[in-house]
Each structure stands twice: as structure tokens, then as C-alpha cells.
């Protein structure tokens, strides 16, 4: 199955191509979402649609301190969620690769990780789109309950 392969800092990740609507460049400014989790970067205007964008690195590892981003502008991978999109902020998109065999996820991996795969010499963490969406929703409900 074809996957979009991208990087968070130096680590490689992949999402099924079928779950991705498109990849866009980071806008100049996000509008902040009030009362949201640290992983939520803000909302952006995508051709008249309002899209929530999350810091994927923070979503995957909430306990790690957020790194200040440097270097070329980052990309937003737009997850296709039917009538809406969810934007994932990543360091860079490498390309589309065929990944057929996905090995089991490490024992302590969160639900967002589907498993590990190899692309030549490189290790790639394959993510689960549904779980990513659920993780974002969960981070919101946690906030509003606290």
C-alpha cells in the first residue's frame, strides 16, 4: 500500500496515502485555539475552510518538551476526515513509498502507532489515522473537563 513518508525532526513516519487529502505549506500565522492542549498549533484558512492544525511531535509524545523549530518552513499533512480535515505539522515530507509489510508496534507504543516498517535501511513508524484523530479529540475533552 502506498504511504506518505515524512519526518519529525530526524525520525521517519508514514501514513497511508488514502488517508491524506493533500500537503500544504505552513501559513504565516495560525489563529490560536483557546483552551486547547499544547499540541494544538491553531487554525488556518485553507481556501475558505477552517482547518485545525496540530503539532504532530507533541501529539505523539506529550511528555517531551516542545522543541523550537528552526530551518526551512515546515509542511502540513492534511488528514482526510470525510467532511473535514485535520492538519498535522511535520518537519518535511519525503515522498510517497510503497510499504507492504508493517511489523508490530513496540510494546509501549501509543495507540497512534500502527507498527514499524523498513524502507531499505531506514526504520519508519507507521501511524494510524483514526487513532491520531481520536488522540486530538481526547486532548480537547481532557482540557474542557479539567
Amino acid at each position, binding site marked *: 500500500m502506498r504511504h506518505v513518508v515524512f519526518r519529525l525532526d530526524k525520525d521517519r513516519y508514514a501514513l497511508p496515502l488514502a488517508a491524506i487529502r493533500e500537503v500544504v505549506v505552513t501559513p504565516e500565522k495560525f489563529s490560536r485555539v483557546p*483552551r486547547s492542549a499544547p499540541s494544538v498549533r491553531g487554525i488556518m484558512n485553507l481556501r475558505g475552510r477552517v482547518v485545525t492544525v496540530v503539532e504532530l511531535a507533541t501529539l505523539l509524545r506529550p511528555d517531551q518538551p516542545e522543541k523550537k523549530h528552526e530551518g526551512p518552513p515546515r509542511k502540513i499533512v492534511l488528514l482526510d476526515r470525510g467532511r473535514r480535515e485535520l492538519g498535522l505539522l511535520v518537519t518535511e515530507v519525503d515522498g510517497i513509498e510503497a510499504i507492504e509489510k508493517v511489523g508490530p508496534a513496540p510494546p509501549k507504543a501509543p495507540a497512534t502507532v500502527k507498527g514499524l516498517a523498513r524502507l531499505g535501511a531506514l526504520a519508519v513508524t507507521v501511524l494510524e489515522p483514526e487513532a491520531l484523530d481520536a488522540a486530538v479529540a481526547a486532548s480537547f475533552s481532557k482540557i*474542557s473537563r479539567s
Partner: protein
Amino acid sequence: MPSGVDTSRYLGLYVSEAQEHLEQLSQNLVKLEQAGSTGPVIDEAFRHAHSVKGMAASMGFEATARLAHRMEDILDAYRSLKERVDRATGDLLLSATDALLGHVRATADAKVLPDTSALMGALERKLWVLKPDTTPRPSSPPPPPALARSLGLPPRFALRLKVAAGSATPGVRAFLAHKRLSGLGNVFDLRPGLDDLKAGRLNDGSFSLELETALHETEVRAALNTIADVELASLRLIEPDAPSVPKTNEPEGPRAVGTEPARTVRVRTELLDQLLDGAGELLLATARVREVAKSAPAASRGAMEGEVDRLNALVKDLHAKVMKARMTPISVMTDRLPRAARDIARRRDRDVELTITGAEVELDRAIVDELNDPLLHLLRNAIDHGIEPPVEREKTGKPPRGRVQVNVRRDRDRVVLEVEDDGKGMDDAKLRAAAVSRGLMTPEAAAALPMREALMLCCLPGVSTATDVTDISGRGVGMDAVKRAIESVGGTLEIESQKGKGTRFRLLLPLTVAVVQLLLVDVGDETFGVPVAKVNGVVEFPEEQLARSQASPLLPFGNTLLPVYSLAEVLAVPNGHVHAGARPFVVVEAESGKVALGVDRLRGQEEVVLKALTRPLDLVAGLAGVTILGNGQPIFILDVPRLLT
């Protein structure tokens, strides 16, 4: 040239009123044909045709008037014969109504009226069949005086006018005089005809007409005084014993005969928008006056603040009324559906019964305007793709006549509009396959879609399950536009469908607030929108001078002290802003009562279209919606009542 202004003004009125009459006429005809009823419906239809005739005649559109006149005759014949309107006659009368609409539209666009002589002939033949003993009458004959009185018609004058021999443009002069008179009432029996009049082909420089008007003779004379080069040669009351009528200051437009004058006025939507803008600005201006009143000398301050409170209450009331004036019953959209349903069903050989409920529910004008076409499209889909041909229906054990229901109801702060048919339902497998074949998704993704989302695929551009492309609907492009229109007014679309059982399109629409007037405030680097309707005032006040009760700061406002909240803290927005001197506070009505929200800057007011919050944004407490400002920046709209809970 004042008469020129008058002409265009009445033309607009003529176009909108004639269209309204014709739409109602067409509804009446559908009802007549269905129920075969006589009585009130045929009376109503007759009145609409009659009104259109009168209006068209008074504007000088004689072909239109003649056509309307023939319809009126046929309706009258049916009325007196108490005969049922059959399908063929229904078709004929509806075509005539359409032709009249065509005339009116051509008039609006300043085009040549379409030729309707063939239709005219058909109407005359029909009339001859109905009433062979009546010979065809000349067009627009004046009703005999006795009849005129019994119909409550105003008195009628016979006028003869003469264009000065030296006039360089006798045609223009005569035409202007005719227009001016048309503005006073109904013009009949114009000689020579309007075309000759315009071309200046006058009989010895003069022309004659009859004018039916509620105005007094002196006023008719006065109206003609303003037209240069035209002289009133003679003026005579045709009916000397007409009762005197009260004077009116304004020239009266054409009126429907036999109907009560409606107690409503037509207002352009544009004007309503401007009124809303104005009312919103007034709210803010009042808030600014309140601010200024703070620095008034102590002696007059109390009185001033009292007055500002009163002013504020009045302005808020005005704002609410303007919002209310924008509310329009949904019947404005649904009234034309029976006719449309009939036509589509006839063309596609379906037998369909349309029922509409809840048409009295009101929505903001802006939403109604946007949904006109989408609703018609959904109806077309239901009949064209939903309802099966009668034979096919009977084979599957359904009644041959299909049912389409349009149900509208209020559900708390939303309006739910459903278009439901008992047809063959949508085929989700076909939709999934179509999405894959168009390269919109992989077969896996398509197969994995839940039913709900699979049905929504019909809204993707280019996906269509219709096997045939008819002149009525091609589902693909249309549904895409339907969905976009619904979302543009802040609504959502849901589809439910069961194969073999039918399909239901459900539109969830905001009641009024699709268009919201916002006060834009800056907090830190962010901008938020506060609905102006929820704002009680805006105050600038030095932060260090706030009163304190225990630890909480209080803002003096009117005669009271209001609890102060920093909007940055409430919304968890970082804010390094330091306020030297006065800081702006927005006083709002929260659930617990009035509170003051400390902001960094007031950015002014903007009217925006509210968009519903999608997941995960709908999980955030204190947000009412989101919008995109004119500069492309997306901002959140605060849910003021629940902001602090």
C-alpha cells in the same frame, strides 16, 4: 427629469409585483388541476390574472396585458361553468403563466417581449370551446361602469392630450406623459398604441387614453403640468356618479382589484443589510458615548449616564427588531415547489404527491436566499432519481404514486429542513465505485467508509449515481453546489438512505445568526469576535484604578460595579501586553449577569458569516463558531453566555 425617475421606480415595482402574482397564479393552477376544485382557488387565480392584466396595461405592456386578459377570460369561464380543469387545460394555463413571466422578465431586462401569438391563439381557441357564444373581444375593454363600481374600481377619466406643434421630439413627450399617467393609476384604451406613441406617429399631434385612478381631477391635471410640450386638451370623468374618494399624497401604483390592501411593504434585502449595519454601529456609538460620559463633570454625570442607559436600551431593541425584520418564512422558498414538482414529474413520467409542512417557520433572509436553488435541486433529485416510474413501483409493491415530503421544524436554535422521498434509495456501492473510478480515493478507503460518509460521496464534484443524464438533474455537480451553499450559511447536510425504501436529505440550518455582527477585540496576538448583540458597552478605564472586592477587580459601570475578567486568562491565551493608562473593557451579558472583559485593543466591527465548529473545535467550551475575516484570517466567535462557566 423627474418623470424618468418615476418610470424606473414603477418598473421595478411592476416587475416584482407581477412576478409575485404570477407565482401565486401558478400555485393556484396546480391546486386547481390536482383537486379539480372550484370556489376560492379559482377566484384567487382569477384575481391574480386580473391584477397582472391591470398592471401590465397601466405600464403600457399591451401584449402582456392581452395574454393575461385571455387567461382571466378562461378562468372566468371555468368559474361560471363550474367545470373541472383538466390536464391539457392545466398545461395550457401554466404555459401561459410561464409566458407571462417571460414577458415580465424581458421587461425587467429591457428586452423585446417574446412572441406569444401562438399561445394567444391556443387560449382563444380554448375560450371559444368553453364559451362558443361569446365573440372574441378587443383587448383590454373597459369594464362597463356598473361593473366597475361593483368591483370597487376607482373612477375613470377620458383624457385627450396634445403635443405642442413645435416639439422636436413629439414621441418622447407623448411617451413621458403616458408614463406619468400610468404612475397615477391604470391606463386603458391608449390611442394610438404605445409603439406608435413612442415613434411619434400621433394623430394630428394628439392622443387619447382612459385613466382609472383614485386621484382627484385637479391632481391628474397637476401631474401633467410638469411635462413640457404636452397639453391637456380635454379631461372628462366617464362615470359622473362615482363616489368621491379620499385624496392621497402619493401617486398610487397599480392595485389588485378585490383584494385587501396588504399591510406590508417590500424592502430590498440590501437595505435590510444596511439597516443591520446601521443598528450595529449605533450600538457601538452608544458604547462610546457612555465612555465620554465618564469624564463629564460630576454634576451632570449621573443624568448623562441615565440617558445613555435609556439610549442603549432603545438601540438594542432596534437592533433586535432589525434582526427580526430579516426573518422570512420558509414558504417563500417552498411555495414554488408544488409547481416545480408537477413539471418535473410530468416530464419524467412519474406520479408524485408533494407535501410540505412547517413552511411557516422563519429563517434569516440571507439563508433563505442562499437555499432557494439547493432546495429546488434536492426536489429534482428526489423525483428524478428517487421516485421510480409508476409501473416499476407497483412491481415492488409500492403505491404507484410516489411521495415526496418537505418537512421543516424548529429544533432549539436550529431549523431542520428535510426532503424525503419513498423512492428507490441511493446505492452506496455505486457511489463508492464512482469515487474510486474518479481517482478520489483508493478502493480500500472507499470500502472502509461508514454508510453515512459513503452517501456523502454524492456531494463530491463529479460523482454521480445517475445512470442517465437528464435535462432535469445530473446529480454530481449539483449536490456539490448544494452542500457548499448549505455550509456557506453555517449549516450542515446529512443524508440517510435505504435501498428500496427512500432517501432523506436533512439540512440543519442556523436560525438567524448565519450573519453575525461582531465586535473584534485583540487579546495578545489573537483576535476574537464578540457578537454585538451580546455587548452591553465598551469602557476604557485605567486598570490600576479598578475597585477591588477581596481579590477580584471591579469596574464601575453605570451605577454598578461589574466583576472584571481578563479575556486572555479566560481563554488561556498568552498575553505580555502591559497597559499604561486606560485599558478597554467590553461589558457583556454572561450567564451570571453583566461582566467586564479586559481586552488589549478594540478593532472595530465586522459583519461575518458564522461557520459551525467542526471536531475537535466543537469540544472547546466558550466558542460559538468560527469565521474568516475579510483579510483571510480565521477567528473564533465567543459564546458569551457560556464563556465563564
